[in-house]
């Protein structure tokens, strides 16, 4: 297990090993000592023979603490089992029952969740009578409402997904839906919750036994030992300390195990450190990228990319998903997050970024105007009122009617196109020399897409800002840009003008890409041209040209040596003829 190397994993393993040792071997190793009555050593303090002292009957406290691990942990697990079983049943039922019965049950769960768990446990313990088993039931049942609520909430979130809708269309029954489709997909957070709950149950059990409602003498668990020890805490503090430490350690073991489980299942591995590329202003070109590499451990999604975007130039960066185009754009604006590592040099003027989904890139809790003004107050220390005025002016610049009103609205009140306009206006709050737009119109409708592309062109003309447009759509790029960079598997394979793109590119990949897109004049009697095979993954080592395995023109040299980038194309056999 790799996770054991992390501090959390190691702590989990260590405390769990201690707990297992006590549970499995405790009664065997110390069983005799724990019941041996020594009338010569009644209620003694710590000594060499009894490191934690003895109790009122002269029994060794350390031995009793170790032996008590088995009933304490065992009963806590029994309680957890009851919680999980009851919670799954109650929380899963609304998904199986019809709409009305489900709603009724949800209301019931909501009602019982409102009671504090420990209070329910206490009441149940009184009702069910004292003793180990009844107390386990009391604690287990007290945990059911919270677990049921979690199950139900998670199930509801999965129930909204397309694959559940697909199964419904196929006529899959409700019970099968719950068992086959819903539960497996919510299992991980539930396991984490159950593990954390086991720690809580252990503590609750100690509390109940301490109050005399749990395990009864002559049986004993940690809570009861604590109770006995506390009566004599001034005579022999060790007698109370030993079970106390055991409870804390065991509780910690469960919690750390739960945290660790959350990390393993949730994929929340601790972030590695990496150097981010910095952006600093330079005169001349708007963006110069030299030998840019972005790596995530062994995977290298961007493998040495060099290009320039001149002042005021509009350049498109196209490629399929996995080509590294978006990472190149992120690296150019210094936004690659660890564990990503950026190498190479990037020189960029003041940069504004426009993302694909303006809903996630605008803060939903702040008014549009406030967010825009923030840019000016933070960067130029502009007074708030002046910044607000500039925000409204910029919103007007991107053709938002009633800009003053929109500035007071929240992002969710705007349509997708309006949000993208606001995002562009935000970029214009400074004086950008470069606007990097990453798939700015992919989430938008065609009619709105056209407006946004027109707006970007207008902004570029009026402010002199250069544009780097990242897109998978050649036609979109051709609408706005004069030059196109084509990326494939982490490298730029072709750098050409839009005229050349239309007339006939030199790289076989660009040609194939162009042919595979149906346009409004495509011949409908013919199947679309396709590119067989798939792009090499960023982790695959590629010796020659990355496109060679899929290329009809590839020769032996293509498979062994990467072609140099010459005359705007990286290919050993470029296509010369222009259609």
């Amino acid at each position, binding site marked *: 297990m790799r996770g054991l190397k992390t501090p959390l994993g190691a702590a989990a393993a260590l405390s769990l090993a201690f707990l297992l040792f006590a549970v499995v071997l405790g009664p065997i190793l110390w069983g005799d000592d724990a019941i041996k009555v020594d009338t010569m050593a009644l209620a003694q303090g710590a000594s060499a023979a009894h490191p934690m002292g003895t109790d009122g009957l002269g029994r060794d406290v350390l031995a009793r603490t170790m032996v008590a691990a088995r009933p304490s942990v065992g009963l806590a697990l029994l309680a957890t089992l009851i919680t999980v079983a009851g919670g799954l049943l109650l929380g899963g039922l609304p998904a199986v029952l019809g709409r009305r019965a489900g709603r009724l049950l949800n209301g019931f769960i909501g009602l019982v969740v409102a009671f504090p768990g420990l209070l329910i446990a206490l009441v149940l313990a009184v009702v069910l009578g004292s003793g180990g088993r009844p107390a386990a039931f009391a604690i287990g049942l007290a945990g059911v409402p919270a677990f049921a609520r979690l199950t139900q909430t998670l199930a509801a979130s999965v129930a909204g997904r397309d694959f559940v*809708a697909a199964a419904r269309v196929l006529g899959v029954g409700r019970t099968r839906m719950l068992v086959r489709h819903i539960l497996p*997909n919510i299992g991980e957070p539930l396991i984490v919750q159950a593990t954390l709950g086991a720690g809580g149950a252990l503590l609750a059990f100690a509390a109940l036994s301490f109050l005399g409602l749990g395990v009864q003498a002559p049986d004993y668990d940690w809570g009861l030992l604590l109770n006995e020890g506390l009566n004599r805490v001034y005579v022999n503090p060790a007698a109370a300390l030993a079970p106390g430490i055991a409870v804390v350690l065991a509780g910690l073991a469960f919690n750390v195990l739960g945290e660790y489980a959350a990390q393993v299942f949730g994929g929340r591995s601790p972030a590695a450190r990496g150097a981010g590329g910095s952006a600093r202003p330079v005169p001349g070109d708007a963006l110069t990228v030299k030998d840019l590499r972005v790596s995530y451990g062994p995977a290298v999604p961007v493998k040495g990319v060099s290009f320039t975007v001149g002042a005021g130039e509009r350049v498109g960066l196209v490629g399929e998903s996995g080509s590294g185009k978006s990472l190149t754009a992120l690296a150019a604006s210094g936004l690659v997050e660890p564990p990503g590592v950026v190498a190479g040099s990037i020189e960029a003027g003041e940069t504004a970024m426009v993302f694909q989904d303006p809903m996630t890139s605008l803060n939903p809790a702040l008014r549009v105007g406030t967010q825009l003004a923030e840019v000016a107050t933070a960067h130029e220390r502009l007074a708030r009122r002046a910044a607000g005025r500039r925000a409204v002016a910029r919103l007007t610049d991107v053709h938002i009617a009633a800009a003053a009103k929109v500035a007071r609205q929240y992002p969710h009140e705007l349509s997708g196109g309006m949000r993208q306009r606001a995002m562009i206006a935000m970029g214009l709050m400074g004086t950008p020399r470069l606007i990097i737009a990453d798939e700015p119109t992919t989430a938008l409708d065609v009619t709105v897409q056209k407006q946004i592309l027109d707006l970007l062109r207008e902004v570029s003309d009026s402010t002199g800002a250069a544009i780097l447009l990242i897109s998978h759509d050649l036609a979109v790029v051709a609408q706005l840009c004069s030059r196109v960079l084509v990326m494939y598997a982490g490298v730029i394979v072709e750098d050409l003008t839009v005229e050349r793109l*239309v007339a006939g590119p030199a790289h076989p990949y660009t040609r194939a890409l162009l042919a595979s897109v*149906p346009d*409004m004049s495509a011949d409908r009697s013919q199947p679309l041209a396709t590119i067989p095979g798939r792009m090499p993954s960023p982790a695959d080592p590629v010796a020659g040209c990355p496109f060679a395995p899929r290329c009809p023109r590839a020769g032996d040299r293509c498979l062994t040596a990467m072609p140099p980038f010459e005359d705007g194309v990286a290919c050993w056999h470029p296509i010369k003829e222009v259609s």
Partner: protein
Amino acid sequence: MTALEFQGVRVRLGRRRHAADVVKGVDLTVPAGTVVGLVGESGCGKSTLARAAVGLVPLAAGRITPGSGVQLVFQDPYSSLDPRMTVGSAVAEAVPKGAGVDRAGEVARLLDLVGLEPGHAGRLPRHLSGGQRQRVAIARALAARPRVVIADEITSALDVSVQGMVLNLVRELQRELGLTMLFISHNLAVVRYVSDRVAVMNRGRIVESGPVDDVLSAPRDPYTRTLLESVPRLR
């Protein structure tokens, strides 16, 4: 094969004060064995219409025939397949129950039909590419032996080179099996490529419909014209 018919279909979504008519009286026929393309922008009600046809949303008025045997292929193959279910069991689940059904054989036949190898049956969706996932989704829809198939934006989550393969597959399957199909997309070029007839939807209503070439070369409705003018073109 059966025709798919929408007669005066209205769909109301939301509760009480927030309720709104998303589909406002749609009459549309997909003749048996043909493909009708449905175009329109997001929010126009085209996906709601599809969901109504398979019973995922209730009708406020009108009638959709046939009432059963309609299968839907969803837009996003990353969310329409259960991440914990192998490809084989996902397809097998859709095969109608009954005596003498050779499930394993049927699954193999369907995977072959959509151009996947038999070895794919044991894999989980996360080990497949987007295009392969969409093939699985198509195989699953066909496994239910549907009378009508509705494809809702099935290529918009895919890369362009993969989109071509899926479109070719859809055309091949439609011709081989004589499927009746409603093909929904916001991409006019894609709709033009696969459909025999096209219907344009705007704000919950069908504003224009007819043979693909007629509608796209001589649009009568102003909205269709705007839509056509907005399509980015290379040439």
